[in-house]
């Protein structure tokens, strides 16, 4: 056990010395230039090396502390409350760990959480947004040539939020009660889940079917397709006729679906692939509108049924006759329990 330990210590000594050199570079330079020859592919293992160095310094600290246990107390008194050599080493190690950690965290943050990546997708004019909203209801005829899809995220995001607002309004007017969760959470989860989830799924299918479409374009296409849903739900949540809903579902929902389908067909080669992609998108899009109507408007339907005709109201109060036999059983059981207690 001692030999591998010593060998491990020896091994850790050499890379620790290299990393010590790296640390000197970082501390001495103070420039923003990253020295790539020290970074290379082992930057992922830098935590382990830092961990080893930290461990080594801790062990050295402990040895010094054991050696200076007696002297440390005197030094404490001499340095007017400062903790002496052990405290200084600890502070330095803590400082170094903090600085290295902070540097790596800020580097990762600036790479991945940089919101400026999305900036080009929000650079729009009101006229463009209006034009795209209207175009989303007009199916294109030319499917032999790849149709242009605007890679824009402002319009789809606002449409998703509008759908959330319409759903909330519909749920409030129909006094829908959500038992496990909140109204707001349900609405946001449903709408954003559909937009992001179905877009991702369709992008995956498009990748399988070799369609020429990017993720942002898919998000944009599906987002603008929600315009039909917004119109349908806005009208049918306020004017309650079943037949009106079905007409809107077919016409408005159908138009926006046809538009999306036509654009996808123009960007896909092969009959089977076109069928798979467009069938899936059409089914999901139309079924989502059906789901939104029926899942969040039940109470209104109940009221409509009672108003429209001689149907049975949803809740009927029937008098419950408790038979004599069960009454006797109940009494004897209560007496038995009272006796045992």
């Amino acid at each position: 056990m001692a030999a591998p330990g010593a060998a491990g210590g020896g091994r850790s000594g050499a890379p620790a010395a290299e990393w010590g050199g790296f640390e000197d570079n970082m501390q001495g330079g103070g420039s923003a230039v990253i020295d790539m020859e020290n970074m290379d592919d082992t930057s992922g293992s830098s935590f382990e090396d830092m961990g080893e160095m930290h461990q080594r310094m801790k062990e050295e600290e402990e040895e010094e502390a054991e050696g200076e246990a007696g002297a440390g107390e005197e030094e404490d008194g001499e340095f007017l409350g400062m903790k002496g050599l052990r405290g200084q080493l600890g502070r330095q190690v803590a400082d170094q760990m903090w600085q290295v950690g902070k540097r790596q965290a800020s580097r990762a943050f600036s790479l991945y959480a940089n919101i400026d990546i999305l900036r080009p997708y929000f650079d729009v004019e009101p006229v463009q947004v209006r034009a795209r909203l209207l175009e989303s209801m007009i199916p294109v005829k030319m499917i032999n040539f790849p149709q242009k899809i605007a890679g824009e995220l402002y319009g789809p995001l606002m449409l998703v939020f509008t759908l959330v607002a319409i759903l909330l309004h519909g749920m409030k007017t129909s006094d829908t009660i959500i038992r496990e969760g909140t109204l707001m959470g349900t609405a946001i989860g449903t709408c954003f889940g559909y937009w992001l989830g179905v877009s991702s799924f369709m992008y995956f299918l498009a990748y399988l079917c070799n369609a020429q479409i990017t993720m942002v374009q898919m998000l944009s296409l599906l987002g603008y397709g929600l315009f039909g849903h917004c119109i349908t739900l806005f009208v049918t949540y306020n004017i309650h006729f079943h037949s009106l809903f079905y007409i809107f579902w077919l016409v408005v929902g159908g138009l926006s679906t046809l538009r999306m389908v036509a654009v996808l067909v123009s960007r896909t080669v092969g009959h089977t692939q076109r069928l798979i992609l467009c069938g899936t998108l059409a089914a999901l899009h139309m079924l989502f509108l059906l789901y939104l109507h029926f899942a969040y408007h039940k109470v209104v339907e109940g009221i409509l049924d009672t108003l429209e005709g001689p149907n049975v109201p949803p809740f009927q109060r029937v008098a419950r006759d408790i038979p004599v036999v069960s009454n006797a059983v109940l009494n004897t059981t209560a007496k038995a329990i009272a006796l045992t207690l």
Partner: protein
Amino acid sequence: MSSFEQFHIDFYQSNYTIEDQEEGCNSYGSDKNPSINKILKFLVAELGINFEHIWQKTLTVLNPMKPADGSIMNETDLTGPMVFCLALGATLLMAGKVHFGYVYGMSAIGCLAMHALLNLMSSQGVSHGCVASVLGYCLLPMVLLSSAAVLFSLQGTPGTVLALFIIGWCSLSASKIFTSALAMEGQQLLIAYPCALLYGLFALLTVF
């Protein structure tokens, strides 16, 4: 105009607010208690609460047709917004709804979302405090709506029309201030719409 602004900038940090406030205080002080002068001076010097500025901003919000001064955004003043949020909660309480938590939660999330959107859409950045300040000030008409909800139920057609009018008023004021401060003139409608959605949520809270 620029030389006037430079003149102001030279004096802004050291003398402007206190002297202006002192003049205002003296005009009050001659009518009322001299201890009010001391309180006002303390508020300005220690806490940065400047009643003149708060009143100017409130007037800008209440009159959506009045052109907004871009320098409004330079100060992050959260006193007015806090007062308006409390007033909204209080008027909702008078209508029988205890929704303070919802008001604060929706304000916080709305500020974060608007801050992200404005940073993405504008060429110059904007801070959280400025967004919170503007959105808070423009909440004042919503307080009027919830006061109306105390007197009569808003769940009919007149209530809906009033709610839509108030939402339009709030979002117009907010988008006017944002576009004048961030130099996004052609995009006022694009900023007004998300503001309208946010204030629509507050209106839903008030109406139902």
